[in-house]
């Protein structure tokens, strides 16, 4: 069973996402802040990170810099699932931060989120 680290500050939305993902046979580790998400990476073997950029205190970009500074976490794919529009990101941000996919949260269905996750995990699923 693959493990998703879901970093989403809104409790109600996160509960919905977690329920849906678990029904699709994923294990979900949910965290609301960048700090607690870094600790979760340390505690669990995570296969993919789903990340909202707008977080309290330390935002998602700071989390990514922290995450990518550790060699053992550099290859973990990250999907941005965020209220931040793509146009608000600096042009090279996705490449610089090694983002696997970008999803604009207000217009992404749960089914589309799962499709994006499956697409990223596909090579691993078929081996």
């Amino acid at each position, binding site marked *: 069973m693959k493990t998703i680290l879901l970093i989403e500050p809104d409790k109600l939305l996160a509960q*919905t996402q977690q329920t*849906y993902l678990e029904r699709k046979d994923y294990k979900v580790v949910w965290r609301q802040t960048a700090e607690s998400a870094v600790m979760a990476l340390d505690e669990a073997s995570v296969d993919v990170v789903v990340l909202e950029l*707008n977080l*309290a*205190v330390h935002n998602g970009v700071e989390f990514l810099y922290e995450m990518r500074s550790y060699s053992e976490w550099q290859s973990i794919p990250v999907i941005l699932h965020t209220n931040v529009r793509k146009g608000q990101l600096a042009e090279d941000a996705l490449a610089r931060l090694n983002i696997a996919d970008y999803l604009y949260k207000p217009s992404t269905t749960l089914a589309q989120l799962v499709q994006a996750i499956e697409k990223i995990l596909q090579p691993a699923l078929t081996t």
Partner: protein
Amino acid sequence: MTALQNDQKSYADLPEARLFAVLAESLKQPFTTIARTAELLVESPDVVLLRNIESTADAATQLLDHYLLSLRLQRAGTELNLEPVSLAASLTEVAHKLEKAAQQYLCDIELHIAGRYEPIMAHSAGLSAALLDLGTVFLETQSQRTHTHRPVLKLAAHRTRHGIVAGIFADVEGLSTDMFRRARQVYGQAATPLNQVTSTTGAGIFVADALLKNMSGGLRVAHHQKLTGLAATFVPSQQLVLV
């Protein structure tokens, strides 16, 4: 952070649009929650999820309503009809209204109104709306933090030499006068103007600020029994003292 860019060019020359911009940005989250929860419910009914939709929709509608009220109060200007209002009664009413949301966010609500206070001249509906919006944002911020014990939101009033300070107080780390001043400068442009406090736009705080500006000078960072919060200072009604 160079990865994220503020929409500084979008709204800087439209000051009246800033409050609407922060409100509109803020409403993306509840509508997304409603849509995704409905998507989940199509597969299987769940009373808890239906209640989440109900509470989310109610909170979003309330915020819109209070924003419209702030526009009406602003338009009334010096002709705004103020009336004697009991702060204790207002705080008690708001505490009661916040109970349901507090249960959802696993917080406790406490009232701290030590002593008797004279009525203040205020717009009753505007005052209640502002306190409700503040309380809602603070409940959200508490839910985003790790606590060693169940968090408490205090609706409190205390007397100072400037008047009666009334507001909402909690264990809000990072809230300071400087931070709030900067947030007032960038809301409607920055995605998270109160980023040390909340991941949201904190629209409820700016709507509350707009509501209270018409009767008290607006919100400021204040302290109550070692807790930090946002409050307004009200001058007691001297007319009623003389009667």
